């Protein structure tokens, strides 16, 4: 075997071991790599107890309410299985909308309301002009009425 063949095998074996190691590390740190928890995970008790965490999902349709003070909002975050009520005082990002993705950071209070100190809008991977979005919305409504 020539030296360069040896080196080739050495590099390949090292890369394979490294990949394997990385896989195990990532699996072990899985929960730490999650940016947010879903409402289902919240109800299943898979979230860190007594400390701040993030929940993510869709803003439930028709759930957004503004308090009289004008800066406190209440809405529900849903993953279509479970809903978590959220309360937030502050300015919402421009893309915050009912039926769109959201990530909120905060902690659960005793009444089971998630008190957020930061709300981020989560954008999806769909990019289209407003006319196309309107056409899709119309088609969706026609389909719903037909049902």
């Amino acid at each position, binding site marked *: 075997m020539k*030296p*360069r063949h040896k*080196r*080739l095998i050495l*590099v390949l074996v*090292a*890369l394979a071991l*490294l*990949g394997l190691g*990385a896989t195990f590390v*990532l699996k072990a740190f*899985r929960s730490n*790599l*999650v*940016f*947010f*928890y*879903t409402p289902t995970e919240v109800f299943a008790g898979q979230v860190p107890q007594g400390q701040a965490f993030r929940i*993510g999902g869709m803003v439930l349709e028709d759930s957004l309410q503004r308090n009289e003070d004008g800066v406190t909002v209440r809405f529900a975050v849903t993953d279509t299985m479970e809903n978590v009520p959220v309360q937030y005082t502050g300015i*919402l*990002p*421009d*893309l*915050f*909308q009912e039926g*769109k993705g959201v*990530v909120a950071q905060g902690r659960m209070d005793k009444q089971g309301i998630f008190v957020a100190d*930061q*709300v*981020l*809008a*989560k*954008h*999806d*991977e*769909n*990019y*289209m*002009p*407003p*006319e*196309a*979005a*309107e056409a899709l919305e119309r088609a969706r409504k026609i389909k719903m009425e037909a049902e």
Partner: protein
Amino acid sequence: MATFFFLVAAILTVWGLYIGFFVAPTDFQQGESYRIIFIHVPAAWMSMLIYLVMSFWAAIGLIMNTRLSSMMAHALAPTGALMTFVALWTGAFWGRPTWGAWWVWDARLTSELILLFLYIGYMALRASIEDPRRGDRASAILALVGVVNVPIIYFSVQWWNTLHQGASVSLTKSPTMATSMLTGMLVMALAFWMYSIAVSLMRVRRIIRDREGNATWLSESSGVQ
């Protein structure tokens, strides 16, 4: 040769930006701020691709003990670092109005930041070792160790819940964006390719001249003293 690639890059950039700013429609949710993708996505793609190409040349240099492949790897590193920086920077500018935060520690953003550190570490290690051949070998090992990060960046949005959205364009499914937006983005990606090839060729020429300046083959072939 580099001049040719620079020319193509310039033409494609003008064309791509024209599509990006004048032809592509406004996005239904984000308004005009989505137009950052014409820079952001090509830069992010290049940052990962250049790392793969760089590690490939570094590995060839390590295995075959060839000097030129190591030099090619070194020539690619600064461009890769630049692309990573541009991707992070434009992403922050987009994130502030869209998400409501300049920076979040989600898996996609963090792994891309690690990529920037890998590039910087690679260049620093290479520069800190006096003997060029030893520097080649040491930095090649660093580059190869860092290669595990590239699939992590790419798949992070699928493997974990991240704030960063999933891929709009991938090899396995049809793109989820309007055609003219996609065209603009792909033209810009091609422009970034051409630019990267052009600067890397120029840089590798400099490196060859610096390191092999005394070699007879160089002075015979190009007339460089």
